[in-house]
């Protein structure tokens, strides 16, 4: 009966080599026993064979039962550890990729676009391969057994005091806020790196005809790493908000420290004699926006001369308000 052999083959080929012969022999005996019972002494027909095999069911399912119902690749015993390790790996990869981008951009801000492209490329390649390798590791660990969840020491004894606090909605930081902040600072970094010449008074004569820049273009290259560093510190502040997720006194202290550092850095930078465009007033006159000696000229030049002070005062006040605001939020009950 060829069909019987085909059935046995279909079952055993999905089983480990070492068990195939034994199981095949046993199945053959079983099928013959079942046929004998069905035929009750008369000759066995093709129909009998078919009915017996139908009773035994799909060979795939039978093979799976022999293998022990393994229709998963990472079993329940290892699954919790798998999720935990995956989170750790993903965090590490994310930190690595972001840090590479930030450090490269600080060292070599001129090619920030290249670094950004590298950043995207490494995100697309590194993340899936990290997921893949982690999963493969666990699949192998599960397949070859031996590794038990208890051995991995991840499941520390649980205590009721481990329960996380219910988030306090009043002190909670909305995730959108720091994310918007980070995007703003990244855009600012890119703006200062590529298009600082557009940062100035825009001239329109019928249509756009040029810019009188606020910044000193000759020294801008020297200041750029400084600007990026300051904005980088601000990004760090937003990241801290994201990580903490709610206003705590610790976070308030960090915010205050970051604000103080960035205020000092900005002050140091913009009070330097070479930061602003030294020919700003002359260029305004040349472009014909105002004429020298007019009343408007006096006003604008006064504003221009005092702008540094005003910017600093404004910045100091807003950073101070930022700190006060966070103190108030952290005190809310």
């Amino acid at each position, binding site marked *: 009966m060829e069909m019987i052999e085909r059935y046995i083959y279909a079952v055993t080929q999905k089983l480990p080599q070492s068990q195939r012969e034994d*199981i095949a022999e*046993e199945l053959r*005996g*079983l099928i013959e026993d079942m046929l004998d019972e069905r035929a009750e002494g008369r000759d066995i027909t093709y129909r009998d064979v078919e009915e017996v095999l139908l*009773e*035994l*069911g799909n060979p795939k399912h*039978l093979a799976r*039962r*022999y293998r022990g119902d393994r229709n998963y690749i990472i079993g329940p015993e290892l699954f919790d550890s798998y999720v935990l390790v995956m989170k750790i790996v993903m965090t590490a990869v994310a930190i690595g990729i972001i840090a590479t981008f930030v450090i490269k951009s600080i060292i070599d801000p001129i090619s920030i676009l290249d670094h950004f492209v590298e950043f995207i490329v490494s995100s697309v390649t590194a993340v899936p391969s990290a997921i893949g390798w982690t999963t493969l590791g666990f699949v192998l660990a599960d397949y070859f057994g031996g590794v038990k969840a208890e051995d991995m020491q991840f499941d520390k004894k649980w205590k009721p005091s481990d329960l996380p606090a219910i988030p306090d909605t009043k002190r909670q930081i909305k995730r959108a806020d720091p994310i918007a902040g980070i995007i703003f600072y990244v855009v600012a970094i890119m703006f200062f790196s590529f298009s600082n010449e557009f940062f100035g008074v825009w001239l329109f004569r019928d249509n756009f005809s040029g810019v009188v820049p606020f910044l000193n273009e000759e020294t801008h290259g020297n200041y750029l790493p400084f600007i990026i560093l300051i904005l980088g510190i601000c990004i760090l502040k937003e990241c801290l908000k994201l990580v903490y997720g709610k206003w705590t006194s610790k976070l308030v202290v960090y915010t205050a420290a970051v604000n103080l550092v960035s205020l000092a850095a900005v002050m140091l930078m913009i009070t330097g004699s070479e930061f602003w465009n030294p020919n700003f007033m002359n260029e305004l006159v040349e472009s014909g926006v105002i004429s020298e000696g007019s009343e408007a000229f006096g006003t604008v030049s006064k504003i221009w001369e005092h702008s540094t002070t005003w910017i600093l005062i404004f910045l100091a006040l807003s950073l101070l308000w930022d700190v006060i605001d966070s103190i108030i939020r952290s005190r809310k009950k």
Partner: protein
Amino acid sequence: MGDAKQHIDKLMQELRRGTITIGVLSQLSEPQYGYSLVTMLDEKGIQVEPGTLYPLLRRLEKQGILDSKWDTNESRPRKYYLLSETGKEVFELLVAEWKNIVSSLNHLIEDEGEGK
């Protein structure tokens, strides 16, 4: 009605999965081969499909609960299974657990009946 039947089918499947092991072990103080076990259990009102029983026997053998031996003297070779020393112990403990469950559940079910 159809819904209730569907639920029962699923629940019975889960319920049977554990009890079949007890049934099988109970018959193996004497050596038996797979198909004779199917017939024996069937006669005593426990229906097991060969496709379930054969892999189960093998698993129990691998766990060391059953011993096995091929008998090639008969018309066709048959693999006989028998409780091992560990298996006997396991079976005794399992029966005690089972009786506990039965009496506790009976108690629960009957209590609920009296409450009505």
